[in-house]
């Protein structure tokens, strides 16, 4: 396992960061970590790279405990804030980071050229970072993370400041690294991005993991059905809700989610038996976004908004 965590928990005083996080990320995986703002995504990443210390639980990266210096040489990290010493030029920053990775002179210089090329910052490297756009600063951060040719790349919202073209380039880069056998841990809000590049995901809510597995597994069993119904009325609406299908309207379309294909005729039957004219019924491929929204909507506010005593009291 490249990353293995067991019951990893972090409290900030009496405020929850994340709780009982158990994850396994194997070699060569692109692992997506999803969750709302404040759900605990960055807390986990910060623990993995040694910025914060767990309150309890344990974790191993590349077979060694958290904070191991030798292992850190094999990790590339792009922080969510991606702020760098803006009084340096891009190239000077790369040299600084190469020296922190103890990369020798000529090898370091070659690698700097290589990563600047990869993130398309070649030609801009001798300008001060303060003159870079946010997107360029994020690319620079990505270049710094790629410097040691890491076995594990941890990216926290890597495209948050990028334009669509930049996002596509980062997606392509992740796929390229994946094909080279690198392991990537990706924190992201952008579900479409995760869906394209990740093969495994975990969803975090209220500081706890609420779902996890391969994308295929997570999406299996959930089918979104789109219907165009004439004479759509309250009775149909109520009947669908009573059977647990929770319909919602999107313009003239009525949408429901079913667990399996067997339920599709049941839906049609409810519509027709209650006076609806079913003009169209289309089972849709369920997107990760829908699954995410569904899981996140269930429940309510984050546990992270509660204090320690509240949670202990309710446990």
């Amino acid at each position, binding site marked *: 396992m490249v990353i293995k965590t067991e019951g990893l928990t972090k409290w*900030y005083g009496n405020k929850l960061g994340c709780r009982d996080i158990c994850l396994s990320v194997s070699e060569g995986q692109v692992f997506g970590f999803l969750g709302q703002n404040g759900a605990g995504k960055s807390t986990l990443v*910060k623990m993995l*790279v*040694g*910025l*914060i*210390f767990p309150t309890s639980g344990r974790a191993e990266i590349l077979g060694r405990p958290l904070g191991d*210096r*030798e292992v*850190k*040489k094999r*990790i590339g*990290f*792009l*922080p969510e*804030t*991606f*702020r*760098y*010493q803006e*009084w*340096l030029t891009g190239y000077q920053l790369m040299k*600084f*980071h190469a*020296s*922190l*990775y*103890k990369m020798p002179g000529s090898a370091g210089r070659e690698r700097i050229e290589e990563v600047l090329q990869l993130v398309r910052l070649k030609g801009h490297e001798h300008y001060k970072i303060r003159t870079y756009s946010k997107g360029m600063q994020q690319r620079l*951060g990505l270049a*710094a*993370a790629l410097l040691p040719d890491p076995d594990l790349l941890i990216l926290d919202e890597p495209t948050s400041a990028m334009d669509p073209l930049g996002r596509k380039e980062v997606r392509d880069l992740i796929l390229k690294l994946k094909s080279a056998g690198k392991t990537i841990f990706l924190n992201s809000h952008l579900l479409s991005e995760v869906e394209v590049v990740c093969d495994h995901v975990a969803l975090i809510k209220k500081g706890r993991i609420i779902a996890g597995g391969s994308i295929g597994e997570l999406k299996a069993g959930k089918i979104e059905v789109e219907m165009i119904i004439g004479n759509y009325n309250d009775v149909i609406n109520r009947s669908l809700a009573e059977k647990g299908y929770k319909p919602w309207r999107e313009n003239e379309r009525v949408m429901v989610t079913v667990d399996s294909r067997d339920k599709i005729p049941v839906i049609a039957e409810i519509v027709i038996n209650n006076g609806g004219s079913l003009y169209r019924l289309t089972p849709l491929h369920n997107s990760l976004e829908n699954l995410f929204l569904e899981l996140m909507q269930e429940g309510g506010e984050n546990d992270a908004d509660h204090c320690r005593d509240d949670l202990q009291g309710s446990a």
Partner: protein
Amino acid sequence: MMLIIAGMTFREVLSKKIFYIVLVLTAMFLVVYGIALHFAVQDINKWGGVRNIQARLIFSQLLSLGLYFSTFMVALMAVFSTVGSVSGEIETGTIQAVIAKPLKRSELILGKFLGYTVMMLSYSIVIYLGILGITFISTGYEPSGLFSGLTSFLLIPLLLLVVSLCGSTFLSTMANGIMVFMLYIIGMVGGMVEQIGSMIENTALVNIGILSSLVMPSDALYRKMVFGLLTGPDNPVTAFNPFSTMYPPSGIMTVYTIAYLLIVLFAAIRIFNRRDI
């Protein structure tokens, strides 16, 4: 690793405009001091020059005035250049990518300490030699104990930068600035109280002064330096004025300061080692 961080710290200071503004203002201070001294000397020389006891008294007072403001300048420079050394990087987030590297947190603190030390010592040596040089050229007045005076003078910014560095590992930049400056003021006022206490032989005042010097020995170091420079076999004049001293701290104060400095540096490392970022 420590040297890499020290180099980066040094470069960071050089990259700031304020550093150059301070250098220009320092040069202006030395020029103004030199001009003032020049005109003072023109009058005083009429009394018989540096051999005249009254002239020596006034020269030593002018020197102590120069040293007093020099100390104030290096203290301010030490505090304001280091006040956000760690907290500022935490607040902006620049430290995150650095801590994730194969680097010990202690190396980061020691590297920063080294970088600031080299910068502050260079600056302080220039000011110290500048003031003494200008005084000597203008007046021919030779203070005694130049080297031990320099040691005390250099310990002042070193002490403040260590306290400021330590504070920045657990306080916000603003809170740290206030804390270190207040400590410096406590040291200064305590020093004055001790002087008055010694003069009127009031033990309570002396004890308050000693206690404040233990909390922040910067003023004690200043008084030790001034006493060494302005008295001694070559200068039998005890120049009592608001910037000078009649009752110097003992040599133990230097040892205490060094121990204080090392303990605070160690505390900075310990605190930062456990700090969540």
